[in-house]
């Protein structure tokens, strides 16, 4: 009797406890969104700030004592870049001896979305933090960046008037400026010159239309040995990204002007899809392995297994530095169609809540490091001396005098045959920003891309109309 009662009480106690444990276990399994960020310097910690002018448009007073934390400092593995960074800090300190720059480097990419979102959530971004153009919305949602409109003038950033307004407008919301650009890119057609030559094609004249791309891809795939003529992404949201780039090139749109409806389920969308499907299945010129994402096509083209794909010039730097490829082996042309092209880039923003002197110091540094022809990142003679590449058409945000000067210096110190990018440089295509809710839309369009490239019997109309429905739903939920 007693033992039975004990047993019952034991089991209820156990049940309660183990149910709770089970609940906690299940919770633990699904709750993995804890934010872990890096700590930033506390605002004004240890700085005796002041001594600066109260006028935001005036440059920083050299007497002002400021400490700045900045991310995206080159890691030790990038010895040459790190050496240049340290040199620039020393040069900058000659003018502003009281500004202490504390660089923070991260291995790998400067910005990895999971780390970045966690950092914003935890408000642990450094005083000056690196972002992509496309991050503006997210940064503002998290109240992360200071409005620097009043601080950025032609006194603090002398070359301001020569920066491409499209670039500046991607850092602006409702008339307020939140960042200063570091680099920008527009997408074009990247080609493997040696495969072009082997296939009897002219590498100095990359294909300019999709019909030409298809013909060239067929010729290159004809080389055999597992070589593909044209490569395309279809996973990790990069498939949708490229579907968008292709649509832009042909003058189409992904979302209509009202921003509320999908605009790709039409004749143009079908044409793009059919062309890719024909290249993949009728011509067999796109290789058998699909479901590729950023990084996969780069490996293929760097190892001479791929003839062409849509890319930005900085892909070449990645392939040379990480995959041991050679600059001479690549060329670029404008995006097929040339109506408009996806553009993007990266920039620095300044943490919200920073003191005026901190903001001024940050702008002074960014101006020196990233926005002065012949200085910092544009000191091409030094870049060449340090064994780093010169001659890529990127960054590409200068206009007018600055462009003339910078282009001349770039050509003078080029470490690669700049003629390889002539077709790309001589035919600039107007940049066009990503659609709203870009990543969500890309995810939907990934299905269109993977459907075309993995299913021989793909029903293109159905793929497009399903995607249209889903994109409309995403836009309705904004």
């Amino acid at each position, binding site marked *: 009797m007693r033992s039975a009662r004990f047993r019952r009480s034991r089991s209820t106690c156990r049940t309660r406890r183990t149910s709770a444990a089970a609940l906690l276990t*299940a919770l*633990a399994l*699904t709750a993995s*969104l804890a934010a872990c960020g890096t700590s930033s310097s506390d605002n004004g910690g240890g700085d005796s700030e002041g001594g600066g002018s109260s006028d935001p448009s005036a440059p920083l007073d050299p007497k002002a004592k400021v400490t700045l934390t900045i991310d995206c400092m080159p890691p030790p593995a990038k010895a040459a870049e790190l050496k240049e960074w340290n040199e620039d800090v020393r040069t900058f300190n000659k003018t502003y001896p009281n500004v202490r720059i504390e660089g923070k480097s991260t291995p790998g990419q400067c910005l990895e979305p999971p780390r970045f979102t966690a950092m914003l959530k935890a408000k642990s971004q450094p005083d000056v933090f690196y972002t992509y153009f496309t991050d503006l919305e997210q940064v503002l*949602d*998290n109240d992360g960046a200071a409005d620097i409109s009043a601080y950025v003038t032609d006194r603090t950033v002398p070359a301001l008037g020569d920066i491409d307004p499209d670039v500046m407008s991607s850092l602006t919301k409702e008339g307020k400026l939140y960042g200063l650009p570091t680099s920008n890119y527009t997408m074009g057609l990247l080609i493997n010159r040696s495969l072009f030559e082997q296939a009897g094609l002219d590498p100095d004249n990359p294909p300019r239309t999709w019909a030409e791309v298809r013909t060239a891809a067929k010729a290159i795939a004809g080389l055999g040995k597992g070589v593909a003529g044209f490569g395309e992404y279809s996973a990790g949201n990069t498939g949708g990204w490229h579907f968008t780039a292709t649509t832009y090139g042909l003058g189409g749109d992904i979302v209509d002007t009202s921003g509320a409806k999908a605009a790709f389920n039409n004749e143009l969308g079908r044409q793009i899809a059919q062309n890719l499907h024909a290249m993949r299945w009728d011509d067999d010129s796109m290789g058998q*392995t699909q*479901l590729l994402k950023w990084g996969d096509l780069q490996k293929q083209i760097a190892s001479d297994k791929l003839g062409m794909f849509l890319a930005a010039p900085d892909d070449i730097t990645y392939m040379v530095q990480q995959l041991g490829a050679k600059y001479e082996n690549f060329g670029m042309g404008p995006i097929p169609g040339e109506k408009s092209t996806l553009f993007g880039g990266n920039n620095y923003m300044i943490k919200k809540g920073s003191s005026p002197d901190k903001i001024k110091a940050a702008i002074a540094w960014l101006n020196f490091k990233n926005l002065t022809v012949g200085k910092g990142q544009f000191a091409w003679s030094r870049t060449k001396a340090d064994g780093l590449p010169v001659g890529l058409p990127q960054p590409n945000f200068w206009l007018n005098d600055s462009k003339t000067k910078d282009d001349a210096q770039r050509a003078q110190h080029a470490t690669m045959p700049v003629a390889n990018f002539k077709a790309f440089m001589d035919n600039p295509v107007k940049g066009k920003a990503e659609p709203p809710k870009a990543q969500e839309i890309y995810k939907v369009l990934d299905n269109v891309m993977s459907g075309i490239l993995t299913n021989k019997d793909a029903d293109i109309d159905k793929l497009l109309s399903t995607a249209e429905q889903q994109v409309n739903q995403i836009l309705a939920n904004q």
Partner: protein
Amino acid sequence: MSAPTLSTSEQPEARIRRASGSRPRATSREAFLRALRHHLSAHSFLIGAVLCFSFFSWYPMVREFLLAFQKTEDGRTTWAGWDNLRTVFADPAFWQAWRGTLLFTGLALVLGFAVPFVVALVINEFRHAQAYLRLLVYLPVMLPPVASVLLFKYLYDPGYGLFNSILDTLHLPQQQWLQDPDTAMLSVVIAATWMNMGGATLIYLAALQAVPGELYEAAELDGAGLLRKIWHVTVPQTRLILSLMLLMQIIATMQVFTEPFLLTNGAGPEGSTTTVVYLIYQYAFNFNDYGAAAALGLVLLVLLAGFSAAYVRLSRTADDA
């Protein structure tokens, strides 16, 4: 699971006093303090673990629960009520992800549940080299998942993969494996089963070796063949372990992420390998919608909590058996 002991503060005298209706007084407090002193070292040892769990486990859980009902816009965090859940349910990918997850779970049960049991049965029949076979079966579990996945990517490659070479040699039609909406998920499950079946096999093996030999002898005397011995002796004797493993598998496979994410780069052909946890990942890290990510996490949690409760109930039966 160890049996719970009686709470130490429940000293017999205190219990008697409480039963007689008098309020506990100083003596019981003294008893409590004495008990506390007695267990002080145990408690101080626990502090570290409790702090660790609080910071890295319980706090994120509470935050996750709150996040599911919050929205952050223009720097302001507001209560969103059921909005996030509505967003998640309205997302066309929601049902696709559940379809993918349930398909994975279903296939993984057919393959990942049956295969290790059969392998365990076979190994159990061997009189020699058992230790070697056990090691062999467990080896894939020791491989880092990424290495296994890369291996399978090569095996599955439609152009130069080993599987298609074998099919080619046998004059059978080549398959697209991961590259075909119809076969992608099955290919993922095959890889996942190979990678994870070692643990299950060892557990089944232990269960099989606990089956008394007399039962088999008795069955043999009654003229039972191999299959009937398995059906009438082995299965009933290992039923409890089998059902526990089934639940464990369901709980584990519902959270599948690594294999489809690495093998098909996420969503797979026409989204056929999208899973719920991959969708949570997308919400959080690609769409920056933590609210929706937490809400979907909550949906998954409710389901898994149900399975976990069933698991606990079963394991209690196992304990009491």
